[in-house]
């Protein structure tokens, strides 16, 4: 237990150091404006990291595996589909019909709906099979992606420009106007979820053990699926989809923290996520001078790490 706390403190220090470096490196003499912009960026990265880390760990616990993440199960695809449908319906009047704030909260409600459907049709089933889950996830993800591209193909090119703003966000093009709403949502998610992390510890033993130990299994699973829905909406709204990130950071967390306690795993995963994104973004801005995008770095390192994981498990 003590060693875990030490590791967490170390991660906090590294994260703070990296953020400080990111904020202060090569500031121009008239630093006020740059500093403010960079602070917003760091804040956005922290919000996104916390939502990705939190959502991925919880999702992996609920599904008892270490490869699936919400983005693979089509959560992000649902968000993109929703955005596309709005523009498809309202065209260039989108902005007059619905403002960014309303859009954001509507998206969250929509994601909660998706989480509920997932719960009803997959988790409520008695025979729960991981491969079936994976298959359903991939099929759903692809289906939503295809519908999204189809809709994007037939809408007016001018309307498509509106869409681009909202769905092709990235770490270089963060939707800053949503920052405060996103921050509120994520604080709520942590506040309501934190006291229940102990139930996640029990759920990680499996459904039958969890029921045996007196957990209201289905209620907890539904609760956490809702949280995941809201978290994915937050991160996708701010910076768009980042598929590989969840797998990378969760597995790093399991590797570093050999623990089953979610009160440790979840904060640790958020910190690791902050460190990797701030680090990668620093490289993008100052080493590669914006010549590559962060997703390439994350996918490159994530892919290498994933291959390492596969090779390692093969040996055993």
């Amino acid at each position, binding site marked *: 237990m003590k060693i875990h706390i030490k590791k967490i403190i170390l991660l906090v220090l590294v994260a703070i150091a990296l953020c400080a470096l990111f904020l202060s490196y090569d500031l121009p003499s008239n630093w006020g404006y740059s500093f403010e912009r960079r602070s917003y960026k760091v804040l956005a990265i922290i919000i996104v990291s916390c939502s990705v880390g939190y959502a991925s760990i919880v999702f992996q616990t609920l599904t*008892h*595996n*270490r490869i699936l993440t919400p983005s693979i199960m089509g959560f992000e695809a649902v968000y993109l589909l929703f955005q596309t449908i709005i523009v498809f319906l309202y065209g260039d009047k989108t902005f007059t019909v619905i403002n960014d704030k309303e859009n954001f909260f509507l998206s969250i409600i929509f994601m909660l709906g998706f989480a509920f459907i997932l719960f009803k049709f997959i988790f409520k089933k*008695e025979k729960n099979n991981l491969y079936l889950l994976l298959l359903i996830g991939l099929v759903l993800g692809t289906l939503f992606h295809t519908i999204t591209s189809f809709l994007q193909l037939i809408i007016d090119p001018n309307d498509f420009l509106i869409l681009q703003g909202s769905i092709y966000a990235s770490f270089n093009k963060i939707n800053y106007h949503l920052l405060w709403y996103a921050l509120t949502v994520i604080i709520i998610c942590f506040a309501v979820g934190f006291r229940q992390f*102990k139930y996640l*510890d*029990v759920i*990680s*033993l*499996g*459904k*039958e*053990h969890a*029921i*045996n*130990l*007196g*957990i*209201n299994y289905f209620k907890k699973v539904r609760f956490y699926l809702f949280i995941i829905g809201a978290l994915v909406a937050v991160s996708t709204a701010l910076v768009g989809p980042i598929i590989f990130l969840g797998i990378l950071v969760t597995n790093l967390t*399991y590797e570093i923290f*050999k*623990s*089953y306690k979610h009160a440790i795993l979840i904060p640790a995963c958020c910190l690791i996520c902050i460190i990797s994104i701030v680090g990668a973004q620093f490289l993008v801005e100052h080493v590669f001078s914006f010549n590559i995008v962060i997703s390439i770095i994350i996918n490159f390192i994530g892919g290498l790490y994933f291959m390492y994981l596969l090779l390692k498990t093969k040996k055993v």
Partner: protein
Amino acid sequence: MIKTTNISKQYGDKIVVDNVTIEIPKGKITSLIGSNGAGKSTLLGTIARIINANHGEIIINEKNITDYKNRILAQELSILKQMNHLDLKLTVKELVSFGRFPYSQGRLTEVDHLKIKEAIAFLNLTELENNYLEELSGGQQQRAFLAMVVAQDTDYILLDEPLNNLDMRHSVQIMKTLKDLSVTKNKTIVMVIHDINFASYYSDYIAAMKQGKLIHFNTTKNIINPKILKEIYDIDFEIIESNNKLICNYYN
């Protein structure tokens, strides 16, 4: 006491448990026997609320299980299923500590620590308590899970093939442990078991299932009888009496 009334469970068109009504006596060991697919595990699962029955009701201590709070029921009744594979970094002690979750919700008290220690010692795992589960053999893992159930300290213990993965020495050890639990602590133990001789030697009552129906339920002496066993398993049995216990020979 555990009492089920007209329990039925079907998956699609297949009826797995068919109208089972049984009253399991308190403080005794009851074995559930029958061939594969007879519905034994499903019946056990419905009693433990892991599987929802389509019909019927289950009464534990004069109270329907649906009227219990989850946490309270978990202090009355525990179940251990046959497949216990975990992909978790967990030591034996941490696993056994989970058995106290219904009482302390993760914050272990003095009493909890004592019960955990007791349970670990009860299953001879004290030397292994800080080992990770994945380092243990199948039999040791099975004992660790049993220790969790012992730490849960419920009056009713349901076990689905507790001897799975165990060699003869450990099987006998576990059965003696269970017998001990039922005699000294007045626990009611219901288990699905395939080895008829273990059932015959250690249980007080035997319930036999065939094609989802409960076909016999009686004291062990009355069940271990060539005619009844043939009806259950469709093979011939020879019953040998030794030391006042009945042993079955069905190997020919």
